[in-house]
């Protein structure tokens, strides 16, 4: 009886030791790899690409009727397009709208690694994106961005149903990668046009006006400028005062 119990204990110990050793030596390897960098990521990304992207962008990444070749667009374009849900494209509207993300973060990184591997291009920025120079960012934003995205990042219309989207939902990484890759109708701002520090400054300012700005004057009216202000003065101002005149008139 004792012998049987001890043999169980030995087997159990052995199992625990083997499991522990396996965990200690084998487990970290796939985790560090998790498929986001290196050859494994590239091959995983290629698989994802063939399944989800190649219909439009081509099996050999040659591009086609549905979408352009992705050679040379770089990881940054992939991260922007896929993390904002713009890709995969739902339908051929004038412009791809922001929608629910279809791939998880690891898959996005794998796709990005694959696209990066086939032709290089801008890569996703490393390090903090929240330490830019706010005032410099404001000046650069007004010069380079506000003519389409509006002074407060509320978005604006372009020709024929195209538009510069509102920036409130854009994360710091999305703002940065958008500048790098120039999605849709947006121009590309290479590091020669806007240095990484200037891009960080713009990111800082955009996040400030869209998410930290408290609008000290009260209701922001959508940050659309004088048009909603005009509507308010007629609907609220004149409207309320006509009610008042009716009230005073009725008491005469």
């Amino acid at each position, binding site marked *: 009886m004792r012998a049987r119990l001890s043999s169980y204990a030995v087997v159990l110990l052995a199992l625990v030791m083997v499991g522990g050793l396996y965990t200690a030596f084998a487990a970290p390897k796939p985790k560090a790899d998790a498929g986001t960098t290196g050859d494994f990521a590239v091959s995983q990304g290629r698989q994802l690409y063939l399944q989800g992207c190649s219909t439009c962008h081509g099996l050999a990444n040659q591009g086609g009727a549905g979408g352009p070749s992705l050679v040379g667009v770089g990881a940054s374009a992939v991260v922007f397009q896929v993390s904002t849900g713009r890709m995969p494209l739902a339908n051929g509207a004038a412009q791809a709208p922001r929608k629910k993300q279809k791939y998880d973060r690891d898959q996005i990184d794998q796709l990005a690694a694959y696209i990066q591997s086939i032709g290089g291009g801008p890569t996703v920025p490393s390090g903090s994106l929240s330490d830019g120079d706010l005032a410099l960012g404001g000046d650069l934003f007004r010069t380079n961005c506000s003519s389409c995205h509006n002074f407060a990042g509320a978005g604006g219309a372009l020709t024929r149903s195209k538009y510069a989207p509102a920036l409130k939902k854009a994360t710091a990484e999305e703002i940065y990668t958008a500048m790098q890759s120039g999605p849709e109708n947006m121009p590309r701002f290479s590091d020669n046009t806007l240095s990484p520090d200037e891009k960080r400054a713009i990111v800082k300012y955009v996040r400030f006006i869209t998410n930290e700005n408290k609008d000290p004057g009260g209701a922001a009216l959508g940050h659309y400028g004088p048009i909603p202000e005009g509507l308010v003065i007629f609907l609220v101002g004149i409207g309320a005062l006509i009610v008042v005149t009716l009230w005073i008139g009725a008491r*005469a």
Partner: protein
Amino acid sequence: MTTAAEKVGAGTATWVDDRLGSSNFVKRSLTKVFPDHWSFMLGEIALYSFIVLLLSGTYLTLFFEGSSREVIYNGAYLPLKGIPMSAAYESTLRISFEVRGGLIMRQIHHWAALLFMASIVVHLMRVFFTGAFRKPRELNWLIGVLLLITGLLEGFAGYSLPDDLLSGTGLRIAYSIMLSIPVLGTWVAFLLFGGEYPGGQIIERLYPVHILLIPGLILGLITFHMMLIWYQKHTQFAGPGRTEDNVVGSKIYPAYAAKAGGFFFLVFGVMAALGGLAQINPIWLYGPYDPSQVSAGSQPDWYIGFLDGSTRLMPNWELRALGHTFSPNVLVPTQVLPGVLFALLMFYPFIEAKLTGDKGYHNLLDRPRDKPVRTALGVMSITFYVVLLIAGGNDIIANIFHLSINEITYTLRTALFVLPPIAYVITKRFCLSLQRADDELIHHGIESGTIRRLPSGEFVEETVAVPAHYSVLMATSDERRAAIAHSEHEHAVAAALPTRPRGFFRPKGGVIVEQAPADKELEGTVD
């Protein structure tokens, strides 16, 4: 039984009266009668918002610096720290973030400016649709239109002063509009701006124009406007006891004074509420003016919006001849069009009098339905104006409703010419219909719901007459007065009618119920 205070009061009054002889004037003024109608108070909104503008504007002048001198910002708003800007913009930021009560004063001032213009337009519509501009009040109509135009200029000057990105964009457009004047354009623009845009002079020049010159002009015009109302007396709607030669209403003191005083505070209250709750022109987000920057959604304040709209709808026609460029694409929508529109508006009373041959005095107002052509012309003009106004916001509409800005522009170009005639026809038909409904009501009477059987076996429907306060009002034209005089129901019973004495176009006061002799034929049926 007089108290000491009363003695002092009476003594002071006597002292003043002995020297100025003013008691007669005061007595006459206080007992002057002003007719009661809600729509007569729309002009007052403009007056009261002007007072709010003067008060809030005075506060702002204490802190504003009307100078384009360049400074480096070092104030409380961090996102602009270290940015070069004009002293005008810097002082506006200081007013917004550092001066106690500065931001709410700025916002009240701006909202009051929008309200001033809006109430002028609404008041103008009331005067137009009721024919209050007819002889002898054509001059006051002219003054009113001048007030509208000076208000427009004043508003534009104020919009330009903070020297933020929106101000500068507006001034840039104003400069281009001046350039489009044939032959003189360049010189006019150089003269006003002190050289090639931006010139470095315009803020310094606009400041005294905005705080002294135009407000003084507006104040003078308002005074003249009110004096004429005082002297010519206010118009009134027709009603029992109201004629072309009298005024029925409340005395200036105390009833009217109490109403007007209370209304002033309500207007002030609405301005304060808007100023405190709704952000207007957040100049810190626009940033300082820089000629290389233009934001999407740059729009003028609403009262200039129709000109922005006309420019957006105008095809891009530009001619080059004899070594010069002519720009009808800018000249027509921004100068020819408003010139024609304001000329038509100004001279409308004279045009109408000429076309109708009506040279009589009019102190009783028209109901809009009784003048179908005028009402239809008015609605037609409003439709034209509103299409232009909508066009001024075509980019915002495209952005919010996910539409193509090109399609909006094409649609509005068509609408500008198609909708006004349609509006004219529909309004005219509508007015004629309403007139007929009135006539029918007066001739037929109001159905009481009682059917009576006569001894002969015949069934008759019982109707009741329209009470006097209705029928007098309906009888605004001579023909219809005659029609009503011959109405079979002139002496009929008027009991069953619901009492609605306080409506939009109905005079107030108790319902007048005439007791008429009973119908002889019906009498026979009573057992």
